[in-house]
């Protein structure tokens, strides 16, 4: 079954990937933060997303996984992960969001058949601020999942080369 999927046309395979990406995200939040994310009915206002974490994928699967959220959400993630207060968590915000993005990328990669050993992940990069343009060459295929974390928007995007 798994081998069969790995041999399928990439476009067909990717139909299965969006629910797996959402599951990968939900698992990371459930296991590492003790939280469940809600599905957002609509995309958020971009200016609300002032923290961006990115993990690159290279090899058999080439692209970029991004997690975008508000700084309020990012601090809350650090609070939940560290079990600490907001003051202590603020200084760990970037590290926490980077690690969440890293775990989502790894968890997703491990769920899709045939890519675990042949796709490498980069260490995470985190941008703070919303006034930027992100240009990636991996723009053949994009999937985006709009979620809410404690009523704050959180967007997971996967951009891939063919």
């Amino acid at each position, binding site marked *: 079954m798994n081998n069969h999927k790995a041999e399928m046309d990439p476009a067909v395979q990717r139909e299965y990937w969006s629910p797996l990406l959402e599951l990968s995200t939900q698992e990371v939040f459930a*296991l*590492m933060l003790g939280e469940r994310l809600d599905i957002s009915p609509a995309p958020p206002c971009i200016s609300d997303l002032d923290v961006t974490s990115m993990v690159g994928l290279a090899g058999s699967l080439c692209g970029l996984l991004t997690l975008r959220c508000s700084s309020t959400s990012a601090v809350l993630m650090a609070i939940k992960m560290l079990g600490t207060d907001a003051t202590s968590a603020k200084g760990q915000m970037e*590290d926490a969001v980077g*690690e969440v993005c890293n*775990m989502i990328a*790894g968890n997703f990669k491990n769920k899709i058949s045939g890519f*675990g*050993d042949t796709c490498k992940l980069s*260490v995470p990069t985190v941008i703070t601020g919303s006034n930027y343009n992100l240009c990636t060459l991996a723009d053949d295929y994009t999937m985006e999942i709009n979620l809410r974390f404690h009523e704050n928007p959180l967007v997971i995007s996967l951009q891939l080369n063919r």
Partner: protein
Amino acid sequence: MDNISVLIVDDSSVMRKIVERSLRQAGIDLSQVFEAGNGLEALAVLNERKVNLVLCDINMPAMDGLEFVKQLPKVENARGIPVVMITTEGSEGHVVQALSAGARGYIRKPFTSDQVKEHIVPVLAGNQ
């Protein structure tokens, strides 16, 4: 599991804290916790300190976890110390690579404290 000294190697300080908390939640009594941000820093710690257990990420800058495990036998203080990988790289190939290089266990992120207990307790028991 009493008086265990541990070295936690991960480039994320948040993850190092989570791993430490998970070990405590798993009922492991930690007497000392040392931290390192990559394999090179970990080797430097082990040159100075004796520990009972090393928990190590794979994807890290400077020196990754697989290279760290390969280098470990060269450190006199570290011979025989069990290393358990704790990483997002969960493919079968990575597990085989890590175990072949000398790791004694493998935990995939994300993880629960129950999973930490399940993997770490037998490793510590086997080393006592």
